[in-house]
């Protein structure tokens, strides 16, 4: 007997493994995809800081300031970091610009006479954008690569206001009594859509109801081709539903489950004192592909509290994170994402 042999003997006849490689790959793919998507805000912010806002226009590459000069509301763009910007802080209505002329709700109620309700209408669909980069944004730099799609023609500022109003209304409808705050900057209106350098509108809202806290993230962007189920669900078909509705809208919904999500920018932790940076809680994710070329991505992260005191022996690390009850569930998230006014082509 030598040492090599003794070691081999000692590790001989292992029991069947508890490692499920397929499950591990699925879990990691899911984590990677969501983390990449969640960090989009941070990446976009970095890009915005680098390239400045001058390159960002909605149609025709106009500057945000030129929207204002032309009478339209300014185009809110992703800021590098919560900056304590002026804005209209704490507006319960979510109207970011102090509601200058007319209610955005009235303008957006159904501006196109039901075109958004029937997005398969050919006339409602703008011509495909050859450039694929709405407003000629700085696609070539860095940041998340988004599918190319038709180019919206609506003014960025008007679209943002319309989205703000629509999402605020829907949030109040699906979660009456919940308090809304802006996750990225509490001094801004709770629901505040901003353009990122790739042309996507994003909003990041924290919902509180009693001691329940959720973070809701909405992204609205053009797309060219709806993915197949295989592609939409990626490597984790299990727990992923793919539904094509009668009007042609495709809805992809990921089952909620306990996932480890580390927020790269830490915004969630910063805005929610007492909650650990590592968010390890149930998660909901919905993608809505409208036939008019609008993709709405909605995600919700459920907050957790991490047990740090009186930790009993032999407690698994995962068990230290105690999920808080959710404010809204995945089905309600789907309702949010399907808000008719959340379209780039009203």
């Amino acid at each position: 007997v030598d040492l090599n042999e003794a070691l081999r003997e000692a590790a001989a006849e292992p029991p069947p493994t508890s490692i499920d490689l397929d499950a591990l790959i699925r879990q990691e793919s899911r984590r990677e995809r969501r983390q990449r998507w969640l960090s989009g805000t941070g990446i976009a912010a970095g890009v915005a800081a680098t390239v400045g806002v001058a390159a960002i226009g909605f149609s025709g590459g106009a500057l945000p300031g030129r929207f204002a000069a032309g009478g339209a509301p300014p185009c809110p763009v992703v800021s590098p970091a919560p900056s304590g910007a002026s804005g209209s802080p704490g507006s319960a209505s979510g109207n970011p610009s102090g509601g200058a002329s007319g209610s955005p709700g009235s303008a957006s109620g159904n501006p196109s006479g039901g075109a958004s309700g029937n997005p398969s209408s050919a006339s409602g669909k703008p011509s495909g954008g050859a450039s694929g980069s709405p407003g000629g944004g700085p696609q070539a730099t860095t940041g998340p690569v988004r599918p190319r799609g038709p180019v919206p023609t609506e003014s960025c500022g008007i679209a943002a206001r319309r989205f703000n109003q629509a999402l605020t209304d829907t949030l109040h409808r699906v979660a009456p009594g919940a308090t809304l705050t802006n996750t990225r900057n509490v001094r801004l209106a709770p629901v505040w859509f901003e353009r990122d350098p790739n042309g996507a509108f994003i909003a990041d809202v924290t919902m509180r109801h009693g001691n329940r806290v959720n973070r809701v993230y909405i992204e609205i962007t053009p797309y060219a081709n709806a993915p197949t189920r295989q592609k939409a669900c990626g490597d984790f078909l299990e727990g992923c539903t793919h539904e094509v509705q009668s009007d042609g809208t495709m809805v992809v919904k990921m089952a909620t489950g306990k996932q480890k999500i580390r927020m790269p920018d830490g915004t969630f932790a910063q805005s929610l004192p007492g909650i650990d940076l590592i968010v390890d809680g149930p998660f909901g994710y919905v993608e809505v592909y409208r036939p008019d070329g609008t993709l709405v991505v909605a995600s919700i992260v459920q907050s957790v509290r991490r047990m740090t005191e009186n930790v009993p022996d032999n407690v698994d690390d995962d068990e230290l994170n105690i999920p808080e009850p959710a404010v809204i569930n995945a089905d309600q998230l789907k309702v949010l994402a399907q808000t008719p006014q959340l379209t780039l082509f009203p």
Partner: protein
Amino acid sequence: VVHSTDTEAYREFVSARMEQWRRTAYLLCGSWHTADDLVSTALMKLYRHWRRVVAMQNPEGYVHRILLRAWLDERRRPWRREHVNARPPDRAGGVDPSSVADKLAMLGLLAELPPRRRAVLVLRYFCDLSVEDTADVLDCSTGTVKSQTARALESLRARLVGISVANDVNHIVEEDLWT
């Protein structure tokens, strides 16, 4: 981003080596359950960095490194601090030669070693890594590997008094000191 073709390569790479990694982890931690946890952690990290790992000259070394770090991290958790309870039976004159080959006895001997010495032995005599590769995994110099090996083997020898294994160990110690 790991694409489907990468995933297949990853699956192939892992499937071919997972049993060996489990055994390595088991020799480090002494529990098959914990070994599976360690390997799972290593597999996750491997997946996350797969594209970078495949470009490495020695991807297995990378796995050994994350496996080892996962084990060291695991040991640092307060409620998982290791309590040596797999001591080999105390008998006059040390361990009975007949029980040396016994798995529990071997694990007990390993468990008595400080972590890095245990790691050195496992890497060198179970994984058959060279001194250089072991130093790479442990992120230390080759001299440290040699001295740690010598001390680990000395410790084993102290437990294995007057038995054949001790002779083998003696040979190894001498070889190590001269290489």
